[in-house]
């Protein structure tokens, strides 16, 4: 199956039974597959009037107790930023899939890019932390969509699956494990007297339990800055308490959220840092360089946000150079550069989008570092 369908199947396996979306290339196959599958699983697919409404609808469905998802690409992702912020501040679990295509604006609707990585980090206004996963194959699209739901349910935050046109449209074998082998997480429910329930009162984990509309908790949920009761508080202390907790909720759990894979780093002098479809080009270049005797390894980012800055910093102290490979003109490369903090040289192999990164371009960058250090 292709990556879009694998993503839809992953959502179904994760227990998603509500999907709201709007057609957009190259993400449409996710919605089409949900439209075929969900009604016969007791779920629902609805095509909304735009991506603003799609994002709003999945938030509403989540408060109704559903695991909910939407999928889109660049222009739709831009429209979702407003209600993504509402999802963050109301701590509403849901999954947003961005099958990235080349921008800005309408850009190249049918062609690949990885240009929305910083939008994923900072696209909605205000200061917040977010979780973003990046699959590099249809199998990972399936697996990471399940993980995206688990993380969103656990941390009560919208989770972004930042896939791309090539992964979305690529056909590969996907192994779907037996149901018993799939570990699922559901949001923690409140306990104790309903009348005393405070919707945003959290313990040391910073993650409040979540009630469902209709269960008699009579809760007030607002996009305004609010206190633990959910009541608006129009002052700096309430803002400080709320925003700092939303940030701490992710930062204090960053180590368990982050997921990276390392290839041939033991004796490496140069490390490629890549994610998504660009990992495939990077692996090819890495093996070719190894065949030619160059000591190069790969750090594969399965989660991009929160960014694994500690690991990158460690690598920077032992490596000569870090080469970021991504289909843009330097987004995650900036994070690598920031984390390396001058301890190693940092390069970018990237372009404006429309095609994958050619392994040859990566090989040249590896050669340039291996011959010069």
């Amino acid at each position, binding site marked *: 199956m292709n990556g879009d369908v694998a993503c839809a199947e992953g959502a179904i396996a994760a227990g998603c039974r509500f999907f709201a979306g709007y057609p957009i290339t190259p993400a449409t196959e996710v919605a089409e597959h949900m439209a075929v599958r969900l009604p016969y699983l007791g779920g629902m697919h609805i095509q*909304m009037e735009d991506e603003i*409404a799609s994002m709003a*609808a999945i938030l*509403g469905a989540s408060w109704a107790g*559903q695991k909910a998802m939407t999928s889109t690409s660049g222009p739709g992702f831009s429209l979702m930023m407003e209600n993504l912020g509402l999802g963050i501040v109301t701590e509403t679990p849901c999954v947003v899939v961005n099958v990235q295509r080349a921008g800005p604006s309408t850009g190249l609707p049918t062609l690949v890019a990885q240009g929305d990585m910083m939008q994923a980090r900072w696209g909605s206004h205000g200061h917040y932390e977010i979780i973003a996963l990046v699959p590099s194959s249809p199998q990972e699209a399936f697996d990471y969509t399940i993980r995206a739901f688990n993380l969103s349910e656990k941390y009560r935050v919208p989770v972004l699956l930042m896939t791309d046109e090539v992964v979305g449209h690529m056909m590969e074998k996907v192994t779907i494990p037996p149901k018993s082998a799939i570990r699922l997480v559901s949001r923690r429910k409140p306990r104790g007297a309903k009348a005393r329930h405070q919707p945003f009162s959290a313990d040391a984990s910073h993650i409040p339990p979540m009630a469902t509309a209709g269960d008699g908790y009579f809760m*007030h949920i607002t996009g305004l800055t609010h206190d633990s009761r959910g*009541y608006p508080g129009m002052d700096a202390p309430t803002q400080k308490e709320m925003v700092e907790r939303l940030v701490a909720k992710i930062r204090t759990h960053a180590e368990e959220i982050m997921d990276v894979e390392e290839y041939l780093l033991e004796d490496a002098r140069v490390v490629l840092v890549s994610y998504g479809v660009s990992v495939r080009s990077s692996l090819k270049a890495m093996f070719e360089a190894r065949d030619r005797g160059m000591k190069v390894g790969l750090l594969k980012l399965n989660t991009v946000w929160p960014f694994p800055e500690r690991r990158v910093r460690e690598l920077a102290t032992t490596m000569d150079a870090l080469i970021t490979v991504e289909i843009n003109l330097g987004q995650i490369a900036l994070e690598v550069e920031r984390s390396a903090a001058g301890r190693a040289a940092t390069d970018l192999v990237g372009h404006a989008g429309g095609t994958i990164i050619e392994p040859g371009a990566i090989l040249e960058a590896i050669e340039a570092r291996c011959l010069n250090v």
Partner: protein
Amino acid sequence: MKSVHPYDELLRTDRIPHIWCPGCGIGTAFSSMLAAIKESALPLEDFAVVSGIGCTGRVAGYLKLDSFHTTHGRALPFATGLKLGNPRLNVVTFSGDGDLFAIGGNHFIHAARRNIDLAVFCVNNFNYGMTGGQVAPTTPYGAKTATTPMGNDEWPFNLPLLAYAVGAVYVARWTTLHVRRLTDAIREVFDRRGFRFIEILAPCPTAYGRRNRMKAPLDVLKYFEARVRVRHDADPAEAQIDLESPIVVGKFVDRKRPTFLDLWSKRYAPDEDEEVHVA
């Protein structure tokens, strides 16, 4: 002994005083809804009230029900997800004219077209009150606002006609002067299913009235009293509001049309005992 207001059980009394100005009509519209909720005797835990942004949007924050104060214009798609996510819920949207018909206009026409089972109450005070009285899609031609200081050169929406045209099954208009009839209408709306819409004309003396020679709160109510004509089953096309003609109020539409969930269930979970009316 502490005195208790009959609606206190529906209110977050610890959030009072509210933000609304003296003479504002939103509180009256809100009280009518509270009365209708009490009279309906429907289980309170089944209610979910969704509002957008603006003075009217603040209603959600004073209700001791499950209530959601969402983003500007997006109350209806949020409410759509809430209703479809749990069809047992009695989902109400209570918001203002700018929220529902300017920034949220697209969502209104599509929620009505789909006939999502939602009760939608729109307080129309002819302007954007919270931001200081700017022109709205409901501001009458010629009326003065902060952004049309010499008078408005746009034509306003005729909300009952719009709601009727896009498929609402119940369409009414009342003013906050018609407290009893408004309460009865809201009560009636709770007995119906499908996309139901009531426009509630309300004074905004602070932002709109003072720019249009209706500075005192009572002036707007007197204006309503002088201009309003109660006409049930009137053609919604006659509901256009301008600064000269009478204002038609009453129940314009009360019809049956299968809801989105009726049709969905018929297709995917048919129940032979249940009759689905297809118009």
